[in-house]
């Protein structure tokens, strides 16, 4: 039995089939990449996994347990954390409080939640911003905050949706380091990212989709050379 498994999931929005019969499995400890052109359904898949949208059909299993149909908070409590592509900071709370809100999932003590949150902020390089109101953060810091908050819920599986977007190459390096540190901490990751340096550099396996359908799955190398992926996604420059 795999750690995480998605079976034949389908999602319709009105007449549009945004996700069309996608299946994949993720093994514990790996970084699983998900790529595809804009609008191919990646974020929708995340929204299906974490319960924001109901499935049109299909099944999702986590650690052997069927999780589709559960509300998002239950899925989070089971150990699946996520970040949002369009960031959702808790605006009028400080950065620290944002992370504490996540940390309360496993403790009711303010002292402990605070200590845990500070640890995580340190880990994500946001410590110096801890007392700032989240609404005043720059985009990059908001993305970091997304990760920090998700980590605070102590997930076993973390869904990262374009957390390196908008970073310059130097900062991208740092982001990669953080993601790898998360992996080292034993957390399995599914990552959506358009920056090839990130996705090709750290993924163990990659699933490429287009128009909601799978077009290829394999190691970064295989994917990078897959003609259909090149055509639909990477463009000739990468060929």
């Amino acid at each position: 039995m795999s750690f995480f498994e998605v079976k034949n999931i389908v999602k319709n929005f009105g007449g549009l089939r945004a996700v069309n019969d996608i299946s994949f499995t993720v093994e514990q400890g790996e970084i699983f990449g998900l790529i595809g052109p804009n609008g191919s359904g990646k974020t929708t898949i995340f929204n299906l996994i974490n319960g924001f949208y109901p499935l049109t059909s299909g099944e999702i299993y986590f650690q052997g347990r069927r999780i589709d149909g559960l509300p998002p908070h239950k899925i989070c409590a089971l150990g699946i954390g996520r970040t949002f592509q369009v960031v959702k900071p808790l605006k009028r709370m400080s950065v620290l409080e944002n992370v504490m809100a996540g940390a309360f999932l496993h403790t009711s003590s303010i002292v402990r939640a605070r200590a845990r949150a500070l640890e995580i902020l340190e880990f994500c390089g946001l410590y110096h911003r801890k007392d700032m109101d989240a609404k005043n953060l720059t985009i990059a810091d908001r993305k970091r905050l997304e990760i920090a908050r998700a980590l605070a819920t102590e997930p076993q599986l973390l869904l990262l949706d374009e957390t390196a977007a908008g970073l310059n190459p130097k900062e991208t390096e740092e982001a990669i380091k953080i993601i790898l540190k998360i992996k080292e901490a034993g957390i399995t990751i599914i990552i959506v990212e358009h920056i090839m340096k990130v996705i090709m550099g750290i993924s163990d396996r990659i699933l490429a989709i287009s128009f909601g359908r799978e077009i290829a799955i394999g190691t970064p190398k295989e994917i990078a050379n897959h003609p259909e992926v090149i055509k639909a996604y990477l463009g000739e420059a990468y060929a």
Partner: protein
Amino acid sequence: MNWKGMIVPAIVAVIAVVLPFVVQAPYVQHIMIMVFIWATLGTAWNLLGGYAGQVSFGHAAFFGLGAYSAGLLIFHLKISPWWGLVLGPFISMLVAIPIGIICFRLRGPYFALATLALGEIFRLVFTNWVSLTNGAQGILILSSFPTKLPYYFIAFFIWGMSLLIVDRMVKSKLGYYFVSIREDQDAAESLGIPTTRYKMFALLPSAFIAGLVGAFYMNYIAFIDPHVVFSLSDISVMVILVVMMGGVATLWGPSVGAAIYVALGELFRAWLGAANVLAFGIIVCLVILFLPNGIIGELGTLKRLLSRQKAKAVMAGGN
């Protein structure tokens, strides 16, 4: 709570206890009782509306249920309406459960208007269900105490207790969760917060306190009818006004708002005759324009204005 945090409450408590012995005019005591009533109701609303961000336009329903619990005890069963203080909060809470289940599926203005509709439904049903409620004729009782003092201390106690409950709640994990839900429900949900359940955790104590103060109101005013206790404009909206004037999502805001609301109302009534409500309306506009987060909510701004007058960049537009 450390000892510093105790100073303000301690001073307030001492003043409140000593006051009726210093100022013995029953009229002043009456005003204080009204302040306590509104402060308590405001505190209840604030827990749900201010902290958890679920702006209810139907809190009169809980207030009215509390009042009627007390009233119907004596009307039908000839049991002292003071037992309403025990029964009322529980009835309000019980009714809050289905209300929450219905309304919490909605967000923002939809939630606000759903609660508005429910509040109105209660008023209409209590008006028309004459066999149970005596309809619009209302319920009239005799006051139990000849002086104001007992009422004063009961009201004070209820107010203090509600402050304590709310304070304990918002200073715990619950408080963080409430505010998270207010700031972004989707984000909160994805952080493992069962938002509906926690909204309920805000609603139930809120309804409990509103029911309690409603039951007290019945005993104190000694007459209720559906039009009065389920009023949209005089209760549901006014309680929001009280909280927002004082300061949303602050512990003392509703109480400060209540003091201003009651005091202004009385002063204007005495000074301005028929123009009193007009003057009150103008004050409401001014407060909200110049102190958009209420008096307590803007204390920081006020302090900063006083201490630092350095020129600053002006932000046009804002977000």
